[in-house]
């Protein structure tokens, strides 16, 4: 089987299959999520896919009241803010993602360091289907 190219297109495809994948350098072992095509540590050119367990901790977050059109279409607005965050995965790398299952209207209740687990949000249909990476408290 041909290996999928180590790029964002493949990363997105894996997300739609509910897999959070990164690229691992076969030479030095360092890995990147989202995947990098080039190993920026040793410049080795041989990569392999590596799947993340999908568990981590909330490292930073924000509750957004004024979002871009694709978020307002989902019903988010000033009265219904959504939450985005940075999650530090157990494997030691960070990703940016939506944060579900928390109250964006009460930011004081959201705590940095909260253990979170991956969730895949499938939006749209057919050719417009997009999967968004999200995490929710364990």
């Amino acid at each position, binding site marked *: 089987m041909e290996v999928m190219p180590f790029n*964002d297109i493949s990363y997105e495809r894996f997300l739609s299959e509910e897999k959070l994948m990164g690229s691992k350098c076969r030479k030095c072992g360092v890995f990147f999520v*989202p995947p990098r095509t080039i190993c920026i540590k040793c410049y080795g050119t041989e990569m392999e896919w590596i799947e993340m367990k999908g568990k981590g901790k909330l*490292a*930073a*977050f*924000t*509750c*957004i*009241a*004024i*979002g*871009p*059109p*694709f*978020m*307002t279409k989902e019903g988010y607005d*000033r009265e219904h*803010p*959504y939450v*985005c*965050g*940075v999650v530090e995965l157990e494997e030691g*790398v*960070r*990703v*940016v*993602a*939506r944060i579900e299952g928390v109250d*964006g209207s009460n*930011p004081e209740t959201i705590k*940095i*360091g909260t253990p979170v687990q991956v969730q895949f949000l499938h939006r749209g249909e057919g050719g417009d289907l997009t999967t*968004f*990476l999200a995490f929710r408290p364990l």
Partner: protein
Amino acid sequence: MRGRRKLGRGVAVVGAGMSKFGIFSDKDSKYLFAEAFNEMLSTIDKGIDPKDIDALYLGNFTNDFFIHQGHWGPIISDLLGLTPKPATRTEGACASSALAFREGVFAIASGFYDVVLVGGVEEMSKRNTEEVTQGLAMAASPYEVKAGFTFPGVFGAMATAYFAKYGASREHLMNVTIKSHNNARLNPKAQFNVSIRDIMNQKIEKAKDKGNPVPTWRDEKEFLRDSRVNPVVAWPMHLYDCCPISDGASCVLLVAEEIARDFTDIPLYVAGIGQGSGKGLHAKEDLTYFEATRYAAQEAYELSGLKPKDVQIAEVHDCFSIAEILHLEDLGFFKPGEGYKSVEEGLTRLNGPKPINTSGGLKCKGHPVGATGTGQLVEIWKQLRGEAGERQVPIKDLRIGAAQSLGGTGGTCTLTILERR
């Protein structure tokens, strides 16, 4: 860095001007740039024939998106009667004209040109807030955009990380806002030319006139805590933590050091320039500083032989209140984790030991993205020449001023240090 950076020959600023920043339904990019250009010409003490300008470098982020017109180099060159001289557009998001400045410096330092105009322009207000938010987000990393992050969202997230690491809070960010407004009150070019106290009084008067319940804020912080007047944009960033949507233009004239005194007896010399690039939020080593700003600062300090303590005044890129605090630390003015305390102690006030954003900063002066980098240098120009009027800082022997720009979410950062000799 391999070896020490140096310029092939010295470069000086001999003129600087800006349009008023604000929201103008009746002014377009060309008109705004003409305003900046005319003011710049009026500041050149011994005058200049604009035909002697060898080249134009123009910063513009995304008029392509905001008004569906790109390719602004030749448009502005034609506006100023500079064609067929070369015009080059630089794009580095909110640092676009800081890059134009840097390219202009290189062009002269290389010996290729003697007189170069550098500036920037942006026309943002013809779109609604959601669209501008979307346009600006084009400068974020693709992963951030897809996750739903907006610009204030990225800085909001960095603020939560900073709060958690150093024990700061929203209250500390308010000190930045209050200071910026106090400075902007003294700047007639500022979009928000009022203090927070002025705004409170205006709202109280309005309520009285309308016979509505009169607000009873005890002080500025109580006003800023009131979500009716200061709603959340991207928590913990509230309305008064965020720079506005603005239209505007700015420019400065650069010349070779050896001819600087043909134009003025008080040229400002380019002592240091630095630029860095940065990763997306997820890939940062630490969420509480900007790697690119630190790199830019190191480069500029090395070139100038100056240290952070030598910089007497600075304009820093306060697109959001937290950004000002992070930059103060990244530039080495204060230690990591101490920026917020220094602001609270008043060290960065107009009459403090390290005045920051005497113009009112992006927050109050306005942030027409492409015009901001050289706009900051217009303020440094005025201050170092003692021409800042009511907001002139009371520092004796004021010689060294700096301007720091940040593009995107830290993707492009610059530091420029000017010196009066």
